[in-house]
């Protein structure tokens, strides 16, 4: 779908050129045209959802649908900045609509109060990209399956205290371009300057190189057999919290008896082997910090960066 976008409305107005000037200078006019031709679905308008909504709207997509069945609670206004403090009891998507729209009147912003689980398949198919925030695993797998087959880009994510994750599936054959600097070859009559005697990297000229990437589905990612040799080899570069966050059926959580001051230790066990350890600061907004399990029999384990 995205490949056909350019045919829609190819001419950028002066108003758009002025407003989007600084980002056109970064990602180019072609990218901006693709953005302004895309329709995006955003399910989940909590703190993370509001940030995503803001960023997509400012970028200048054609349309953004805010989908959320939840009601605005007292906490909602502190979690995100699109919901007015006076909107308690209202639907969260509808309450976010006005401020979201004001971020950029050139984007068509819609609010939908339905449950994302209740939406039929063809609802999702009208979009070029879908973002699922704080959704259940079953829903994410279903939508991911449905969309990636039709070249609809899928993004999932959520946050927990200081932790968060993002998953994306851009399709089995995702085409993109990468900007590379042009190497200026030395010629006598070089047009870029009378002194170009040696080959140099011309900082002003770049060229676009076409590339393709292949993404796995969410289902495939979740079904990785972490006990296999291949997967174990990749564990070193896999953040430990990956396992905590996606709650793989194969992982069981064991709460360890030892208590250190105000925290307790939790281990992630995979097929009866300790995979990762965490210590959990109780009831604290600081969340959880990872550490390695006590067993030295375990071959390799991942490390997480805690910024």
């Amino acid at each position, binding site marked *: 779908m995205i490949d056909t976008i350019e045919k829609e409305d190819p001419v*950028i107005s002066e108003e758009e050129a*002025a*407003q989007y000037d*600084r980002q056109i200078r*970064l990602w180019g006019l072609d990218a901006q045209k693709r953005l302004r031709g895309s329709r995006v679905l955003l399910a989940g308008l909590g703190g993370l959802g509001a*940030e995503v909504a803001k960023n997509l709207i400012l970028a200048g997509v054609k349309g953004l649908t805010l989908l959320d069945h939840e009601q605005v609670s007292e906490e909602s206004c502190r979690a995100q900045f699109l919901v007015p*403090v006076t909107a308690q009891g209202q639907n969260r998507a509808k309450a976010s609509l006005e401020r979201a729209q004001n971020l950029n009147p050139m984007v068509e912003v819609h609010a939908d109060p339905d449950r994302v689980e209740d939406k039929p398949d063809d609802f999702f198919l009208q979009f070029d990209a879908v973002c699922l925030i704080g959704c259940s695993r079953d829903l994410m797998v279903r939508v991911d399956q449905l969309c990636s087959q039709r070249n609809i880009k899928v993004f999932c994510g959520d946050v927990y205290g200081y932790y968060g994750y993002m998953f994306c599936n851009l399709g089995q054959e995702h085409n993109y371009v990468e900007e590379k600097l042009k190497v200026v070859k030395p010629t006598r009559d070089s047009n870029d300057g009378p*002194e170009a005697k040696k080959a140099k990297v011309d900082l002003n000229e770049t060229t676009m190189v076409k590339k393709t990437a292949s993404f796995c589905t969410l289902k495939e990612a979740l079904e990785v057999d972490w006990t296999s040799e291949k997967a174990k080899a990749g564990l070193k570069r896999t953040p430990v919290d990956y396992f905590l966050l996606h709650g793989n059926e194969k992982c069981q959580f064991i709460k360890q008896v030892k208590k250190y001051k105000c925290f307790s230790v939790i281990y992630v066990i995979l097929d009866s082997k300790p995979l990762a350890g965490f210590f959990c600061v109780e009831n604290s907004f600081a969340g959880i910090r990872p550490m390695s399990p006590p067993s030295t029999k375990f071959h390799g384990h991942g*490390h997480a*960066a805690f910024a």
Partner: protein
Amino acid sequence: MAISHGYIELADSLSSCKVLVVGAGGIGCELLKNLVLTGFKNIEVIDLDTIDVSNLNRQFLFQKKHVGKSKAQVAKESALQFCPSANITAYHDSIMNPEYNVEFFRKFMLVMNALDNRAARNHVNRMCLAADIPLIESGTAGYLGQVTVIKKGMTECYECQPKPTQKTFPGCTIRNTPSEPIHCIVWAKYLFNQLFGEEDADQEVSPDTADPEAAWKPEDTAARATASEKDGDIKRVSTKDWARSTGFDAVKLFNKLFKDDIMYLLTMDKLWKKRKAPTPLDWQQLEDSARPQEETPGSGLKDQQVLGVWGYCQLFQHSVETLSSHLQEKGEGAELVWDKDDPPAMDFVTAAANLRMHIFSMNMKSRFDVKSMAGNIIPAIATTNAVIAGLIVLEGLKILAGEVETCRTIFLNKCPNLRKKLLVPCVLDPPSANCYVCASKPEVTVKFNVHKTTVLALQDRILKERFGMVAPDRKNCKTFFGYYYYLCVVRLHELEHDVEFEVVGEAPDKAPTPPSNQEEANSITNGNKDSAQPSTSSKAEDDSDDVMIVDSDEEEAASSATAKPAPSSGTKRKHSDAETGETSTKRPRTTQQSSAAADNDDDDDIIALD
């Protein structure tokens, strides 16, 4: 949600402490939103700027209806909507105003910069050192960003590592032998000032006869004599006066700048022995051979089209007419100030620069590209600023929780590194012992020609411009805010041509060779007109957070296992990188140390359990 132990104190301190945000632009808007939602109740924000339409793609506290209004003021109003009970004070002012003295800074527990220029950063750095208030410094450019913490006595200050000064070009390159489009653009901006703005002796546009490369002999050639006679010996008449005397006749101006002056340059034949010589233009010839410009509709922005030579001749003529009438309207002694967002001013520079590029055999550039270079535009998007603002608050919370030792410099890269990290934290360096800003006895030595340098030049170019002093006191050689600087005067006559002064310990203030792509990308996050970031080639990636040590004995064992390079090695490596022009490791190395650390960690993670 229940909060335990030390976090209650943190929550209290959030709601009671006062913080200052310097700048209400890209980073500032995101930062204000974050501070308000995190629970900060007393925030002051300052910005001298007003809102422009090009800000609206990322400075989301502003809407179209706010264009022209004060950024600080509107930012305050929008942020208050998120938390009406917050106390936000907005100042539409420059932070460099002496009103914001040390006492003012002492009101705050934390200062956060959201600036886009080095002069202001230097100033806030010094004020925070003087007031001993922690400062969180940050910057973004395109997809790249960085955050760092500055705490007096504990970390490097913003000026501990010398940063390359803004790129300037020698006069003879601009006036005689341009080889890159940027030289022609700088020339065109100088020309604007000479004709319509404040005339500056350092912004001459006419051929430089004193060019050492030309090996000029006073016994002139016939051509030179002819040229002088034609123009009535322009050296004695200012460019503006001469132009005015012709009634700002565009064609006369064109022929002088793009024909006569070029022919003059051609007589300096030594310059063209190894260079391609310029080709003068003739207005009449161009007009006669002009063909209608082919339009390429739709594919790019209007501004992205590159016109033909005659197109730029017409643009030159048109913009000269518009600008000269603006000037006349303003009356006697009036001056125009160049502004990239003023269409005729931008048209003029586009036209003049392109004509010059054509003369010197360079490919001409579109108005879009010329505007980028002439206006020092740094591309910007919302998301980079959002990430950086988030990191600023996280560092701020560490400071307020009394955990400054856990603060880091964090880099946001465009692509993940070998460890798949986009965000790379680095340990903060201690202060530099001979930093002329934060050392206990700050001192710097400057060499300049005592006979040739006027006191005014010493004040303006050296003290104010180079060292960022706001109000140097001539009598006692100290700045307004109590920093003492000792200048050792050395009588030196052998400074190179075009070098006005030299700060001992740095390379002379000249145009450096173009940096490698990585360096340049890294170095512009400090904003417009800045050329470098706080250098980090010495910094190890911070590995200590990878493994959380529970028992204190193991903490020491683990830190010694993670081998970090000694901080003192940093300075040496950095200078050698700059001089050899290698792609510097200003983004920290990740591979060797990290894998070594990982392998060693197996034994360190044994935790005793009951």
